[in-house]
């Protein structure tokens, strides 16, 4: 089921090209109903061959264990097994259906064979690495091509030499705490993901091991700064990021990125609002799944989430059956880790584009978060409505909130 779920996610996130491939390997409807009378209900050669080919196999018949009614008498041969056989016991262990009792470790220790781990490992070292890596590299290449074609977005009007305060100290402080922690978390996360594949063969296993131990330390602890900054940024900017009619104009003119027009915008334009909500929603999701990973087995997320998704019927929209809701503690962690990584890759790609437009992509953009002061010419070009509001406030107009009634 892990593979089914990940295929569903990839279809959702990476769209059509992957869909065909994912369905080919993951469609449960492809399981063939096999006649097993010849083996007395046990596996057939066909089952084994299908499994070897990586095709779906309906193994529900292997999860039926023993039959007390057909048990031999207690004094008879095998009578002590109570209608079960040794293979039954092993299959019960294999499918986590045996009545396991442990003196320590709780539900985690009761899982003796955790075959979901293999699907997780294959997903993590296969599609996650491949598509995640290409997503980041593709974003960088796309931005480089865009830069070559469009060049830097210049300020059309001459600089006035007069500046306005774009962001207060506390806003810039929270932004940079969020930015610094995200970059550290992103890099250390990528080290953990790709270290064994690319760092160990080139710089050596010892170096890789040391780097990954340090990465884990940084990743686990810097996460708190990220979460705190995320909350700060949310409360400071949410009111400015509620969609409104100016966003339609912004989209209609492609944000001024293509062509020479510069659509009017308030403090944040529609493109910045997309960045804001991406950071809040995806960053929030990464934070929740990260907390679940920080406290292993304490905060399971997916059985509950899958129940809600199944109730809505979302898997059915993509032609899949219900998602599994009876998850072992280990499977919970595996889903959480996979989700954490998928959402992180998507947010990293978005943030790379954000870093581009906030630095080399647009003249004067860095000053807004650097010193907090921007030239009025820049403000007029990119945030004309916001500049008008500021001017109105300076003049003590209605927008200032300081207007006193006429006496």
């Amino acid at each position: 089921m892990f593979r089914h779920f990940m295929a569903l996610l990839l279809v959702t996130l990476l769209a059509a090209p992957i869909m065909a491939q994912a369905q080919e390997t993951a469609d449960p409807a492809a399981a063939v109903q096999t006649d097993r009378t010849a083996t007395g209900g046990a596996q057939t050669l066909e089952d084994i061959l299908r499994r070897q080919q990586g095709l779906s196999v309906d193994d529900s018949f292997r999860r039926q264990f023993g039959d007390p009614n057909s048990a031999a008498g207690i004094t008879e041969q095998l009578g002590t097994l109570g209608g079960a056989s040794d293979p039954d016991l092993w299959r019960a262990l294999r499918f986590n259906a045996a009545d396991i009792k442990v003196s320590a470790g709780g539900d985690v220790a009761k899982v003796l064979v955790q075959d979901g781990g293999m699907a997780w490992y294959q997903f993590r070292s296969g599609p996650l690495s491949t598509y995640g890596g290409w997503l980041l590299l593709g974003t960088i290449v796309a931005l480089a091509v865009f830069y070559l074609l469009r060049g830097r977005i210049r300020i059309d009007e001459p600089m006035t030499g007069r500046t306005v305060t774009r962001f207060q100290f506390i806003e810039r402080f929270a932004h940079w705490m969020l930015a610094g922690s995200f970059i550290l978390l992103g890099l250390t996360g990528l080290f953990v993901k790709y270290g064994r594949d690319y760092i160990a063969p080139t710089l050596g296993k010892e170096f890789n091991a040391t780097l990954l131990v340090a990465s884990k330390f940084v990743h686990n602890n810097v996460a708190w700064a990220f979460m705190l900054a995320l909350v700060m940024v949310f409360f400071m900017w949410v009111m400015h990021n509620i969609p409104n009619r100016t966003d339609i104009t912004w989209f209609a003119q492609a944000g001024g990125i293509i062509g020479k027009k510069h659509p009017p915008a308030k403090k944040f334009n529609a493109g910045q609002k997309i960045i804001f909500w991406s950071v809040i929603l995806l960053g929030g999701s990464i934070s929740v799944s990260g907390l679940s990973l920080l406290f292993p087995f304490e905060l399971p997320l997916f059985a509950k989430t899958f129940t809600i998704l199944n109730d809505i019927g979302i898997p059915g929209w993509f032609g899949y059956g219900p998602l599994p809701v009876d998850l072992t503690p280990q499977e919970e962690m595996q889903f959480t880790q996979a989700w954490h990584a998928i959402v992180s890759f998507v947010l990293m790609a978005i943030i790379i584009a954000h870093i581009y437009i906030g630095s080399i992509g647009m003249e004067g953009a860095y000053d807004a978060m650097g010193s907090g002061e921007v030239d009025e010419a820049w403000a007029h070009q990119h945030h004309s409505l916001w500049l008008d509001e500021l001017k109105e406030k300076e003049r003590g107009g209605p927008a200032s909130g300081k207007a006193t009634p006429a006496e």
Partner: protein
Amino acid sequence: MKAMLAGFAAMIVIGLGAWYVLGEMGFASAERMSGPSVRLD
């Protein structure tokens, strides 16, 4: 620039603080996922 440096400094302080506090509270993996009867040597 001051805001940026202050943000980075706060990130380091929070990170080290989290490491210290969680360690003191016994939330290190070694403490949560192991016990005195486990031999690691």
